[in-house]
Structures are given as structure tokens and as C-alpha cells.
């Protein structure tokens, strides 16, 4: 056990995975000598060599397309996309190729790869260093989408994602990278995919969040507790395939549902979750579900803390729902 922040925990997970399986390779921009712009891969090229930690030319098409080829021939590549905002130049490889390779070869060929990428706002990154494009990948059949909120889950989910035989997009909340430390085992362990976690049990409202927004949901829950509203907070951890039971059972218990995400509201994952809840727990709902989300604009800079669905926006939504 060591005290680790999110960066250290992910690094530790990568190191464990690379020590245990020589087919695990890392590929991305500036991940070698520099150790990545967030230093997640610091020291790994030194330990494992330049043929296992590939500092690539500036091409997301190359990073993802080449990783697919590596995965097809026995390696387990972990790509780093420097910011989620820069995944689009390689989007085609991810959604048309990685996602569909198994289907179009009836599992004869498949693509075990992980795409790590920091996402989200709160670091004054503006419209190109703050995006949360998870819903695009959730919409794409064949991809799994993971988003841890804390160091312990991050390491376990990352190792599990590397072991997984399907392509996984692994979103890292960059706002949490150095914000939080916790005890994390030094050795390898896994946290299963598609298992959400009830991080705070409650009776009155179900609140679903993930990544950096989890802490905002918790802080809003604390706040409304003082006003007698008891919120159940669920950390999704894996966004897709969803742990539907944990979410729906919670809503059946509370009758009220709030979902929080940084991405713009329209066609974000929140709408999907609301719909799933409505489809499966309609008669249990005592109030209309509420979305607390980023707004439908490009991500702004100066006022990013008003744009983000932070506690100050979540708390009123919880109260409103509870008192509906």
C-alpha cells in the first residue's frame, strides 16, 4: 500500500500490467522522455524501453490505427490521447475499425486495446482541453467506456481494461489527477467493469455521477442533508455497458433521479440514463428526472466554474427533485 494520487495510481497500474505481460505496450505523444504532459507515464520508457513505450509522431490516426494492428497480432496496446479533445482526428479508427472488427470477423480477429485519455474541465483549458465526449463512444456499439473517479478504482479498472478482450476507452478526470490521495495497493489488482458503486447510500433521491463530478455530487449531497434530503450517490465507474441494476434498483427505492455530467446536455449520456430509468421504473418515479450538465455551448474558459455542473448547481436540483 502507498498513498497515491490519480496520476500515480494509473502509472502504478500501467507498471504492474507491463511487468506481468510483455505484450502490453504504450503508444502516444510525448509519453516517453517527458512521461506525458500529465506525467502519467513518467519513468516507464526508462524501465521498459523504447519498443514498449512508443513516443509517436503527432497523429492520433496513427496512434489508434497502429494500435489496432498491434492488437490484431498479439500485443495489448494502451494508447494515450493527450487530451480527449484531440481524439477526433483518430475517431474513424476507433468507431469504424476498433469497434467493429470483432463483429465483422465473427470474433476471428479482435482488438484488445485501451485508449487512455484525460477528459473534462476545471483546469482552465478552454474549449480544446476540457471536453467530455463520452457519449459519442457510448453510442458506438463495440466499445466499452470506463471513467474512474479515484485512484483505487482507476488502477483496478485500468488493469481490468487491459485484460479485457474488447476495445476500452478509458477517460481520466484530469481535474482529479493531483487533487486527491488515497491508499492504493502496490501490486496488481482488478476492479470489474460494468459494476457501479453506491458511494453514499440514501433514501430520497438517486444521484448518478462519474469522474470528477462524483465529488461535486457528494458535496451537494452533504449540503442538502442539512435540509433533510438523503441522497444516494452512485459512482458509475463503467459508463458502458452500464450496471443497469444498481441504477434502476436505486431509483425504484428513491423514486427520484438526478444525473450529473460535464458534457453538453443535448444527446449526452444523461438523456440516455434518464430514458433507461423511465423505461424501467416509470411507475416508481415520483418526480421528473433531472439532468445537471454542461451547457450546449463549446466549453468556455473564464466562467468554466459556472458552466460545469458543480455542487452549487447540483444541490438545488436535488432539493427540487426531492420536493417535487
Amino acid at each position, binding site marked *: 500500500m502507498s498513498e497515491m494520487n490519480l496520476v500515480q495510481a494509473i502509472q502504478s497500474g500501467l507498471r504492474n500490467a507491463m511487468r506481468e505481460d510483455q505484450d502490453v505496450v504504450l503508444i502516444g505523444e510525448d509519453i516517453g522522455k517527458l512521461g506525458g504532459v500529465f506525467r502519467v507515464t513518467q519513468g516507464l520508457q526508462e524501465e521498459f524501453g523504447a519498443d514498449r513505450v512508443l513516443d509517436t509522431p503527432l497523429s492520433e490516426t496513427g496512434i489508434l490505427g497502429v494500435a489496432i*494492428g498491434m492488437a490484431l497480432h498479439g500485443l495489448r496496446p494502451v494508447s494515450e490521447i493527450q487530451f480527449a479533445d484531440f481524439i477526433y482526428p483518430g475517431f474513424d479508427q476507433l468507431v469504424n475499425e476498433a469497434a467493429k472488427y470483432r463483429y465483422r*470477423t*465473427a470474433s476471428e480477429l479482435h482488438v484488445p486495446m485501451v485508449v487512455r485519455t484525460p477528459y473534462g474541465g476545471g483546469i482552465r483549458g478552454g474549449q480544446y482541453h476540457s471536453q467530455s465526449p463520452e457519449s459519442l463512444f457510448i453510442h458506438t456499439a463495440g466499445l466499452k467506456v470506463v471513467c474512474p473517479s479515484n485512484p483505487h478504482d482507476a488502477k483496478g479498472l485500468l488493469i481490468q481494461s487491459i485484460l479485457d478482450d474488447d476495445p476500452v476507452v478509458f477517460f481520466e478526470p484530469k481535474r482529479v489527477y493531483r487533487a486527491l490521495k488515497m491508499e492504493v495497493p502496490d501490486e496488481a489488482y482488478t476492479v470489474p467493469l460494468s459494476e457501479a458503486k453506491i458511494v453514499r447510500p440514501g433514501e430520497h433521491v438517486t444521484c448518478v455521477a462519474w469522474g470528477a463530478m462524483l465529488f461535486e455530487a457528494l458535496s451537494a449531497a452533504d449540503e442538502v442533508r442539512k435540509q433533510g434530503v438523503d441522497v444516494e450517490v452512485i459512482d458509475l465507474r463503467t459508463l458502458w455497458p452500464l450496471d443497469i441494476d444498481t441504477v434502476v434498483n436505486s431509483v425504484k427505492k428513491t423514486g427520484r433521479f438526478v444525473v450529473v455530467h460535464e458534457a453538453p446536455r443535448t444527446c449526452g449520456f444523461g438523456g440516455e440514463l434518464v430514458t433507461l430509468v423511465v423505461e424501467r421504473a416509470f411507475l416508481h418515479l415520483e418526480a421528473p428526472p433531472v439532468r445537471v450538465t454542461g451547457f450546449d455551448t463549446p466549453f468556455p474558459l473564464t466562467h468554466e466554474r459556472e458552466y460545469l455542473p458543480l455542487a452549487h448547481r447540483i444541490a438545488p436540483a436535488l432539493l427540487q427533485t426531492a420536493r417535487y
Partner: protein
Amino acid sequence: MQVIRDDGSLDPNLDPGLSIDQVVALYKAMVRTRVIDDRLNRLQRQGRIAFHVGSLGEEAAIVGSAAALRDRDWIAPCYREVGALLWRGYPLQRYVDHMYGNAGDPVRGRQMPDHTFSREHRYLSVSAPIGTQIPHAVGVAMAAKKRGLDECIGVFFGDGATSSNDFHAAMNFAGVYRAPVLFLCRNNGYAISLPTSEQTAVRTLAEKSAAYRIPATRVDGNDVLAVWKAVRDGVDRAAEGGGPSFIELMTYRMGGHSTSDDPRVYRTEEEVDAWRRADPLLRLRKHIEQRAAWSAELEADWQAVCDAEVRACVRQAESMPASELREVFRDVYAEQPWHLREQEAECLGGPRARDHEEGSS
């Protein structure tokens, strides 16, 4: 580069020294490819299959490349290279079943015709989006290198694909990492309707290779021995750690882009006629006839054999049931998640679609 001269003789300086048996085997494979192609085009016109994308005129480029690769080398196809897969022994019945999307189709009716693959034959999967297989090939090559395997990969793509994002990324990565990959560019003159001269301002596609410091060769792609030699040179270079090679195979798409295309709209009959005289089969046949290894009689026999073979496969394919409906819901992930289990049940348990006029709404 040209090895088989127009008169059918070989250029002694370039002759790669294949035995006459090997050369005849190449010829037979090319004829077989064409006979299958012909039959599939007919079947499409008769409405018995939905679509076909053929290789008329490009058989030397395709079969010659496949033959020069070693068994352990990989092939990353574009979509016209089923001749390469068949060269490797892929069962014709399986291919024809695929063309019908029936229960014998290895992809279970999920993909359009001509979207083949075979792990066993080290043949990656055909994908419609142009260029996407090129970085895959580089990744396969890099994996082989990292794992210490003496393998390389030949990746096919067209002139149009040189404009794709994937081409640029793949060439650059291959150059930087010295990946054992052969870029097999079938310059067949057209990307659907766009002539190569409008695809890019350079006069030869081989010039593009210099931008990545990858050695390039430009060969007569209708000359199977020239193709064989260029590709084998590339294999040798890769095996010696020399990294990637780019080979421009100068050929011509004698048919339409696919059965959905009508090339008369954008090119002249004269142009096609000129290329008909450069037919790769004619050239090679002249050569093996000169060497007394082939004759009109052998030709007729072999064509009949191939034709009978494909007809038998078609008969069987047409007798097979369609792929099963539940296959729609499988192989999305290694394990079927709850939502696909539910959707499969919803679909299988629900009403079936009415029959309808194709294309009407």
C-alpha cells in the same frame, strides 16, 4: 519495371528465376480469379447476389504479390484482393457462401459481399472505409518486430487511398519505426470516377514515398513476374531489418468500380480498349505458351475446371439457409452484455418484417 516483354520473352537481367511450374501456377491462379469474378458479376446482374467488387485486369498485381509473400507473412487487403486469399488456399465454397451471406458465411451475413478475412490465412479483414487497413498493417508489422518474429505484411490499397489520413499516418509511422511492411499500391487509374491524374498533382504515386523516407519501386502491375520480383525484394529487405518498402503496381481497372458503377459516364471506350491489349492474362499466357507449358487446349480445360468449381459452389451456396437472425446480436463484444441479450430477445420474440419491394420505402 517490366520482366515479361511484349513479345512474351523474359528480360534476362530481371528474370526472378521462377520455375516454369511456378509460373504456370501463377497463371492458373489468375485465370481462376477471373473466372470466379466473371461468374459473380453475372450472378449480380441476375439479382442472385447483391454486389460484387472485382479485380478484372488487376489479377497479376494481386496474385503476383500474394505469391511473393511467404506463408508466414500477413496480408492486409483493400477489397479487390480475394485472388490473394484464394492463392493462400482459402476454400472457394466459403467465399461464395460469404457472397450470399448464408449460414456458411464466416461473417454470418453481417457484412456486404467481398468483405473477407481469415485468421488462418493471415489475411486481415476487408473494410469499406478507404485506407483504414494501412495503419493496421503497420501495427501488425511492429508487433511482429517487437515479438521477434521473422514476418512481414503486405498491405494493398488503391491510388485513391494515397489521399487518406490513414495512408499518411501509416507511411510516417512505418518510416519512423522501420516496420517490416510492404505498401502495395494498386494504381489502377481510378478512384471510382476520379482519374489518378486528378487525385494528386504528382505524376507517379511512388514519389509520395520519399516524404517518409521509404524506398519505392514502380512496376508494371500487369506483369506478374515484375510484381513478384518487386514484392520479393521488399520481403527480403524487411527480413534483413531494412524496414518498409513502397511498391506502385501500375495497372488498370478494366471493369466498373463495382457492380454498382457505370464507368462509361467518366471514361472512353478507347481508353479501355488500349488497356485490354495490356491484359495481364494475355501477356503471361503468351510467355508460357512460348515455353510450351501452355496451350489452347490446356486453357479450355482449365477454364472449364474453374467454371465448374465455381458453379458447384454457387449451387451449394444457394441451397443453404440464410444466416441466422440471432447472429445480428452476437460478436459485438467478447461476451454478450445485458442490453444485447435483451435486444436479441426483443427482436427474436417480436414480429418479422414484411417482405417488400427492394428500395421502396
